[in-house]
């Protein structure tokens, strides 16, 4: 299986009384809470951590896009990914991803992803999320009633821009461009970089991923227990559509804290976990359900059927209502897997096999976890957990993984003292 190291880049210094004094971590979080000089260190620490994970042999490092968000400091994940492309050599770069409807014209995404693919020698995984209501409809002012149509059309445009050999005119409902002809073009051109779709539990998304042969990723913060119904819904739908159970069709996000013992893990990870589930997920419910964001089919499923349980768990409003914020409930609920290396191995094997997920995206930094603790967690997982779970799903081929070029450029180590002397 693939073990991928994911960073949300949370602002780590939200005050203790944040939830009492502020209505939301997202959309209208107050600017006075943001200290750019502290953010300088946060960004650099976070990028060190991503690079460290690459050195330790994680299959991919992952970044994502959020706007006006106190737990996600990457309005442009492409900026981070381009830097990581220069500071890593073999690891896949998973940009999870660009919310297509937010880019005007959407060919900007085709261009920037092609740049990252070229710089990295073909290591890009291209994630195309619709984007959360908070990011798209509120922070970016997109019309919720048009968002999905615009997203789907932008997808068509980006894909055609990557694969069509000649300059073409795009005559879309929302986008019209006389001359589409992106330069540069992606290295992965057979036919294009792997496309992964992070989404909630909507049947339409599952069907679309199956039809397009894309990886479906369920990026919940609530762990494998809450994610089980969604992933079962996904696999049931795949079966209906006649698709195999190749676990690499799916990705799943899981928080983990590993230490020498369970008690030590509790000692280390309680504070950052409670910071994340308390302060970082303190989102005002008024930003959760812009009308039209959830399709009527999904609303109907949510009210009617058993799949509804999955759809409900996946909806932003019900996510907000889960709300366990103390470590005991966080661990009991499976939001964060903690324990000694062997205990974590057992749980990871259980997560992977019960959800049938070949791409496990690990959050080993969360909340206000320090760089030292993050590196400890990352190293211990790489050394003591990874070797005992890598064998899973060996019988399946991952057809959705980047295929880098063979003779990639050597990236010289950065030596500031040499640069200074020159």
């Amino acid at each position, binding site marked *: 299986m693939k073990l991928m190291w994911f960073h949300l880049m949370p602002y780590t210094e939200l005050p203790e009384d944040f939830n009492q004094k502020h209505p939301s971590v997202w959309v209208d979080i107050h600017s006075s809470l943001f200290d750019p000089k502290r953010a300088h260190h946060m960004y650099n620490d976070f990028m060190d951590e991503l690079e460290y994970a690459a050195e330790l042999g994680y299959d991919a490092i992952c970044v994502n896009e959020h706007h006006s968000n106190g737990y996600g400091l990457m309005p442009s994940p492409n900026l981070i990914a381009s830097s990581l492309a220069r500071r890593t050599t073999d690891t896949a770069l998973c940009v999870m991803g660009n919310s297509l409807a937010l880019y005007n014209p959407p060919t900007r995404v085709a261009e920037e992803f092609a740049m990252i693919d070229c710089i990295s020698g073909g290591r890009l995984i291209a994630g195309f999320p619709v984007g959360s209501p908070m990011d798209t409809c*509120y922070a970016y002012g997109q019309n919720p*009633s048009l968002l999905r149509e615009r997203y789907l059309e932008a997808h068509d445009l980006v894909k055609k821009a990557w694969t069509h050999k000649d300059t073409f005119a795009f005559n879309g409902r929302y986008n019209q461009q006389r001359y589409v002809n992106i330069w540069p073009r992606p290295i992965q051109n057979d036919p294009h970089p792997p496309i992964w779709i992070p989404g909630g539990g909507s049947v339409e998304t599952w069907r679309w991923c199956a039809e397009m042969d894309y990886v479906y990723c369920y990026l919940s913060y609530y762990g494998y227990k809450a994610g089980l119904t969604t992933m079962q819904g996904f696999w049931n739908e795949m079966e209906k559509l006649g698709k195999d159970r190749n676990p690499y069709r799916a990705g799943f996000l899981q928080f983990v804290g590993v230490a020498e013992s369970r008690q030590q893990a509790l000692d280390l990870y309680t504070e950052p976990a409670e910071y994340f589930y308390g302060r970082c997920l303190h989102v005002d419910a008024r*930003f959760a359900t812009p009308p039209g964001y959830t399709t009527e089919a999904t*609303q109907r499923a949510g009210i009617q059927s058993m799949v509804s349980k999955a759809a409900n768990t996946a909806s932003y409003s019900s996510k907000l209502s889960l709300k366990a914020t103390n470590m005991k409930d966080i661990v009991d609920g499976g939001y964060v897997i903690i324990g000694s290396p062997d205990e974590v191995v057992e749980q990871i094997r259980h997560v992977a096999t019960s959800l049938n997920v070949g791409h496990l995206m690990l959050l080993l930094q969360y909340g206000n976890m320090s760089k030292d603790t993050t590196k400890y967690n990352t190293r211990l997982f790489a050394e003591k957990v990874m070797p005992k779970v890598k064998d899973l799903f060996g019988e399946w081929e991952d057809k959705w993984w980047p295929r880098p070029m063979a003779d990639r450029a050597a990236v010289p180590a950065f030596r500031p003292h040499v640069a200074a002397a020159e």
Partner: protein
Amino acid sequence: MSEPATTAPATTPPVTTTVDVNGHPCRVWTKGKGPKLGFLAGLGGLPRWLPFLDRLAESRTVVAPSLPGYPGATGHSELDTHLDWVLAVRQIVDKAGLAGADLVGASVGGAFAAEMAAIFPGNVGKLVLIAPFGLFDDKEPAADPWAQRKDALPGLMCAEAANWNELVAPPDGANSVEWPIEMTRASEAAARAFWPLGNTRLEKRLGLIEAPTLILWGERDGVLPPSYAARFASGINGSTRVENIANAGHLAYLDQPDAVARAVLKHFA
């Protein structure tokens, strides 16, 4: 269009007909006697017939078409631009037999009533605008009706929260799955046309309105500040009068049906 009933006791339901717009059905409710009067409803649309419309129907034939996406109508998903919306409303007005009739528009429906009077002046008689959408003032920003907690919305729509709750409550025998979806669809239809600020640049076209216009505003409108009334009044070319409705919120016709109906009928007399 079927002929409306000639007598209108308060208890009788309206006559329901349907007109086609872009291949989608839009419900038209008709009730009353006397000259025709069109009503384009506000946020939430018309999930049920209203006491306000009964007051009007005592002396006028009330024709209340549902715009695309509002209760009784679909087809909002065909409409991508403001021009699409304006032309859809024009078709509905014509097909409902309202060409040349007096027109009342409230809230989101008020913005479209103003567009009709501005762009198709021969198509509208006299005009009443009840807290219409269409403008946005940076100094006095309108509230965001699409970013409200569930318990805050009724009090934002009406001075008396119960009046909104009564509007959207499922009637006996309503389909428990489809009813909430219809209510959300009405909100989506409004969002589709007015997201994010409610500003359709209507200000540019107010000068084209020649119809004598009464502007009504609930004194306790929590969505659009009552001061917006003066901006409409100064922009409109025809004669205008502004009246504030006491103890009324954004959907003043739900809070004060009698007072709003009296003002409308007086203006159209």
